[in-house]
């Protein structure tokens, strides 16, 4: 009887999807991996809600209320939650807005920015409310594993997932431990 596959969910919060691209960049190594894992909610599957999962890979930090809601859903449904990449770990480049107030950021983007036409700050009720600061994942929920990098190298994803499957601690060697 085949072993049940490890169920993996992924999402991108305040990130650029670069971490997902790096995950896919493991090239042919994904073929033996896909024998062992299957995807639940993920931009790769386009499933919008999350089921019960073994691993949740979260790219990006928290910049709005929806990010927080998704993060809590992941925490609730995933046995192990992984902060993937610089933005998830410390807010990354989006957190550089923390020097300014939300109003200043909105005014710069939508009223005073270069090339802005028909200047107005969006106010649709469906738009999630921005947080006053961009914050890392561990400021909101417990995180079990960390993959540093912008993005983490493909080999780092591979090592982490294989380590979890093999029930051992992951080892990130010098080349896979990077912050840029």
């Amino acid at each position: 009887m085949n072993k049940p596959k490890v169920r993996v969910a992924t999402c991108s919060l305040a990130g650029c999807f670069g971490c997902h691209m790096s995950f896919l960049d493991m090239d042919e190594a994904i073929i033996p991996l896909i024998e062992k894992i299957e995807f639940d909610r993920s931009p790769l599957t386009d499933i919008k809600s999350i089921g019960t999962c073994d691993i949740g890979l979260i790219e990006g930090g928290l910049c709005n209320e929806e990010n927080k809601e998704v993060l809590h859903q992941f925490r609730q449904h995933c046995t192990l939650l992984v902060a993937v990449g610089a933005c998830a770990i410390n807010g990354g480049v989006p957190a550089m807005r923390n020097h300014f107030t939300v109003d200043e950021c909105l005014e710069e983007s939508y009223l005073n920015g270069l090339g802005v036409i028909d200047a107005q700050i969006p106010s649709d009720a469906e738009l999630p409310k921005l947080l006053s600061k961009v914050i890392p994942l561990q400021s909101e929920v417990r995180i079990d594993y960390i993959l540093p990098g912008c993005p983490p190298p493909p080999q780092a994803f591979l090592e982490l997932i294989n380590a979890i499957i093999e029930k051992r601690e992951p080892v990130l060697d010098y080349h896979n431990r990077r912050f840029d």
Partner: protein
Amino acid sequence: MTDELNFLLDGVEIPFHKGQTIMQAATAAGAYIPHLCFHPDLAPHGSCRLCIVDVNGKTVSSCTQPAEDRQEVHSNIPELQQARLRLIQLLFAEGNHFCPSCEVSGNCQLQALAYDLGMTHYHYAPFSAVRAQDGSHPELFIDRDRCILCDLCGRASCSSDNKNVYGLSGRGEQTHLIFRSNSGNLADTAASVNDHAAHICPVGCILPKQGNYMQTIGNRLYDNAPIHKVGNHRMDDSTSANKGHTNE
């Protein structure tokens, strides 16, 4: 009988002469003790505490502790490496160290020490401190977000450049880099891009406005070898003093 003085650093005999600190002697002998605020040409500052070593069961900073004959010094032990990791994590949490957007990434000693000590995350909640930048100088840009208050620039400015441009002011978490001019701006000081002080910053706080991003990823100082092998350098630092303590 020999008059040579020496001590044991992790079991290796390190010669020294009277008046040298443990760090000075170790550096001269090519042995690496992790550090950020130490430079062999400048007076010790003792502020980063990364160079802590165990001497007779007591933890001391090796850059300020005088070497003593036949002393047994331990540096590369798990307890001290763990303490150093926490110190590095505190520095990352206190500043705004966004490596992906930093021009010194790959050549940064703080980042290199974090790699070497196995850091994957901050451990502490980030301060998200709001700090003023200074772009007033035509040749240099100051990003105080990344300053780790090592005062290497201040010491180099005084003793290497004879200028006294850079300094530290304030207390506790308010401590910050200042420039000695009436306006407080770097542009109104005698600072030059050719100063030793302008090239001694171990992180990305003092940046020449030109000549950055000269190396591609994979070819930077700490891309392929850890700092305990390469030593504390900046890729653009051409001073002979800083090239003198490579630990290869």
